[in-house]
C-alpha cells in the first residue's frame, strides 16, 4: 500500500486536507485571511467548539447522540459566572460548572443506557429542561459585570499568537485521544458503537460505557461553558443555543461516523476549527455572517448523506458476500464440492 493510499484511509487526514484546501481557497480570494494573526485566530476562536465536539464525539462514537450540550454549556456558564460575579472563588466556580455538566451527563446516560430511550428524543427533552433551568436560575436576565481578571484570561497568549485557552484545549484533546486509543478501557467507547452485541460478548460493560460517554460529554460542555464566559464576558439566557448542531457537524466533518464506532477526537477537533471559521470566512469573502447556520446545516447534511450512502453500499456488499459463501461457488466448482463432501 502506498503512503498516499494509507493516508487516505485515515479519516482525519482528509479533514485536515479539507481545512488546508478551504483556507487556501479563501486566501486566494482575500489574502488578508492568510496572515498569521488571522490564521491563529481561526484556531483560538474554535476553543469552545473544540471542547464541545470532542465531548460529543465520545457519545457519537458509542452510536448515540446528545443535542443537550448547548443548554449544558449555557447552564454551566451561568452558574460559574454568577459565582464569580458575586465574588466567589474560582475553584468553587469551576467545580460548580463541572458538577452541572456531569449531572446532566449522568441524567442523559441513565435515561438512554439504563432505560433504553432513543437518545435523540431523550436529550431533546434534556435540552428543553436544562435551557429552562438557565432561565429559572438567572431570572431571564443577563449575567454581566464578570471580574476583569476572569475575562482577561481569554486573551492571555501562551506563545506568539496562541492563546493559553486553546493550548489547554489541545492538551485535553490529546490526553483524551490517548486514553481513547491506547488504554484498554478507552477502547470500550469505540467497540460499543462499532458492534454493541459483539461488545457484550467480550465482556464489555456496554451500559456503563455509554453512561460514561454522556458524563464526559457533559463535562467537556461545562468546561466549554467556563471558557465561553471568559471569552464573551456576559451570559445571556440563550448562551450556547444551537451549538449542538455545530458540534455534531464538526464531528461528522472530522470523520466521526454518526452510526458509531468510527472516527477520532483529533478529527473532531479539526472539524471544530472548520466549523467555527465559517463565519469568519464569510466576513472575509464579503458575505453576511447570517449565512453561517445555513452553511453549517448544508455541510452537515451533505457529509451525512455521503457517509450513509457509502455505509449502505458496504452493508449490502457484506450481506451478499456472506450469503454467497453459504451456498458455495457457481457452476463447475459446485460439482467438485459435492463429490468432495
Amino acid at each position: 500500500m502506498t503512503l498516499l493510499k494509507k493516508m487516505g484511509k485515515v479519516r482525519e487526514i482528509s479533514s485536515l486536507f479539507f481545512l488546508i484546501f478551504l483556507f487556501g481557497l479563501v486566501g486566494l480570494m482575500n489574502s488578508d485571511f492568510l496572515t498569521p494573526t488571522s490564521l491563529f485566530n481561526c484556531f483560538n476562536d474554535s476553543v469552545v467548539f473544540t471542547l464541545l465536539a470532542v465531548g460529543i464525539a465520545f457519545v457519537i462514537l458509542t452510536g448515540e447522540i446528545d443535542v443537550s450540550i448547548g443548554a449544558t454549556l449555557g447552564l454551566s456558564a451561568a452558574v460559574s459566572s454568577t459565582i464569580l460575579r458575586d465574588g466567589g472563588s474560582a475553584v468553587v466556580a469551576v467545580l460548580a460548572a463541572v458538577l452541572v455538566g456531569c449531572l446532566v451527563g449522568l441524567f442523559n446516560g441513565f435515561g438512554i443506557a439504563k432505560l433504553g430511550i432513543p437518545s435523540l428524543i431523550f436529550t431533546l427533552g434534556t435540552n428543553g429542561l436544562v435551557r429552562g433551568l438557565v432561565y429559572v436560575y438567572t431570572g431571564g436576565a443577563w449575567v454581566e459585570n464578570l471580574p476583569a481578571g476572569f475575562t482577561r484570561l481569554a486573551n492571555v497568549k501562551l506563545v506568539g499568537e496562541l492563546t493559553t485557552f486553546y493550548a489547554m484545549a489541545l492538551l485535553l484533546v490529546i490526553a483524551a485521544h490517548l486514553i481513547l486509543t491506547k488504554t484498554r478501557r478507552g477502547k470500550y467507547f469505540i467497540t460499543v458503537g462499532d458492534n454493541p452485541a459483539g461488545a457484550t460478548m467480550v465482556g464489555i460493560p456496554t451500559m456503563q460505557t455509554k453512561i460514561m460517554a454522556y458524563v464526559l460529554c457533559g463535562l467537556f460542555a461545562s468546561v466549554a461553558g467556563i471558557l465561553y464566559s471568559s471569552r464573551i464576558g456576559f451570559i445571556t439566557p440563550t448562551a450556547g443555543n444551537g451549538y449542538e448542531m455545530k458540534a455534531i457537524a464538526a464531528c461528522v466533518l472530522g470523520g466521526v461516523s454518526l452510526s458509531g464506532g468510527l472516527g477520532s477526537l483529533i478529527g473532531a477537533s479539526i472539524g471544530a476549527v472548520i466549523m467555527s471559521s465559517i463565519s469568519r470566512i464569510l466576513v472575509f469573502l464579503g458575505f453576511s455572517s447570517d449565512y453561517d447556520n445555513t452553511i453549517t446545516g448544508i455541510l452537515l447534511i451533505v457529509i451525512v448523506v455521503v457517509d450513509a450512502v457509502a455505509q449502505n453500499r458496504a452493508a449490502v456488499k457484506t450481506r451478499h458476500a456472506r450469503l454467497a459463501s453459504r451456498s458455495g461457488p457457481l457452476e463447475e466448482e459446485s460439482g467438485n464440492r459435492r463429490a468432495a463432501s
Partner: protein
Amino acid sequence: MAQSQTERSGQSLLCVRGICKMFSLNQVLKGIDLEINPGEILALIGGNGAGKSTLMKIIMGIYQPDQGEIEIRGEKVSLNRPSVALTHGIYMVPQEPMLFPNMTVEENILVGVGFDAPGAELRRRLAQLMDDIGWHLDLSRKASSLSIAEQQLVEILRGLLRNAELLIFDEPTSALTFDEVESLFRCIRDLQKKGIGMIYITHRLTEVFDIATHVAIMCDGVITLHGPIGDFTREMLVKGLLPPNMQEQEIKGTAEATMVDYKNAKPILELQNYSGYGFRGINLKIYPGEILGVAGVVGAGRTELATTIFGKDKVLGGKAILDGRDITGLSTKKVLEAGVNYVPEDRHLNGLFKISDVAANTTSAILNRMVMGKVFLNRKAEHDLTQEYVEHFRIKVTGQDQLTGSLSGGNQQKVVIARALSTKPKLVILDEPTRGIDAVARGEVYSIIHQLKEQGVAVMLISSDMEEIVELSDRAVTVYQGRINGEFQKEEINQDNLMAAAFDVISREQVVS
C-alpha cells in the same frame, strides 16, 4: 493452561444441572443436564427452537437461568455477566462472527475483559499462538475486510488468548466453504489435543461424525439423547431429532384435499437454474391449486429464494417464469402486479403496520388500485373488503378500527395473509406462516391455506416445522446450503424423509440435479 489441567484432572470442565428457563409463558428449557470434560467435543444438535441458543446464552452469562446450577471445574458459579464467563475460561464463537468491523484484527482480539497479562505480553503470546495453529493473518487489517472464515479464526484466537478451556461453536460452518471447513476442523482437532473442551452446535450430521467425541440431541427444551458418538448411527440421530410423540402420528395431510392433476396442469411459476445471493441453480415448478412445501433448516437459503422471486434481491442467474411471462429481476411492484405475493417470515419486522387499524392493514397493498379511489380513499370499498376477510378468515377483532398491534399473534398473521390475498395473486409465498402462534390459530391458518388451494392459488410454503410441511404439502422440496437436495411426492412426504434431507443425510438416488 496445561498446568491447570493436571491440577484439576478428574473434574469436568463444565457441568450444568437442571437448567430451566422461561420467556414470558414459553418454557424454553425444561431441566437440562450436561457435562463436558477436557478434550471432549460435544456435538449439540436439534431443530430450530429446541433451546440450544438459549442454553448457550445461559452458559455465557447473557441470560440467567430460572432454576438449576452451573459448576466450572467442580466449583459452583453464578454466571450473571459475560465477563464472569470469560474470566472462568468460557468463550463462545457465535454463529455470525461479532467482530468490530472498524477495528484492526489485533485490536479485535485484544479488546475486552478476561485477560491476565499486559498488552505487550499478550501480543507476544498471540504471535506464538498463531504460529502453533499455523493460521496466519495480517494483524493490521480491518476486520471488515476479512472473509467469514477469517473472522471465525479471529473469534477463536480471542477465546484462546483468554486461556479459554471451554470453547462453544455455534454453527461455525454455516457460512464457510468446503476448504475453510477443513481448516477449521484441523484447528479444532489441534485444540482437542491440547485438552480444550468444546461444545459444537450444528445442523450438519456429517460434521458430527467427523469431529465430535460425544453427541447430545436437544428437542423442545430437553436433552433427549446423550452419549459417546460411537454409540450412535445417523439413522438413530435423525430419529432422535423428531418430537417424541411423532412416530405414531404421521398425518398424511387431510384426506379430502383434492389431488393436483399434474398431467394436464401448466405450472404457475417455473424457476430455471435460478440463482441469487444465498441459493444456487434452483429448478422448480409450482402448479395452480398446489401447496409446495419448502423444507430446510434456518439459513439454508429459502427466505432468500422467496425475497429474490419477490424482487427484493438481485437475481444472479437463471429465469423465473410466471404463467408464461418472464418475471426475472422485475421490481417488487411489478412482481406484485404480475400476481405473486409474499408473506414474510417476521411479520413484526416486514409485514405489519402495527399502529394502523385492521382495515388499513388489509387494504394497504392495493391502495394504488382504482377500487380504492383515485385520490381520496374509498372508505366504503375499504370497509367492505376488510369485512369480507374478517368474516372469511374469522379474524377476531373488536372492529375494523382496532389497532393491528393489539391483536393476538394468530390474528395478526391472518391480517397479513388477508392483505396478501387482497391483491388476488396467482402465487402466494408463505414464509414460516405459523411461527409463534398458538395451536388453535395455527389450525385456522391451515384452513385458510387449504381454502387458497381450493381456489386454485398456488402456495409456496416455507417452513422449518416438518410437521407443518407434512400436514399441508402436495409436494415438497428440501433446501440444503442454497440448493434443492430432495424432492418428495405426496406419498413420500413424512418427517423422517424431510428431516434426513434437511440435514443432508440422504441417499444419492434421491438427489435431484
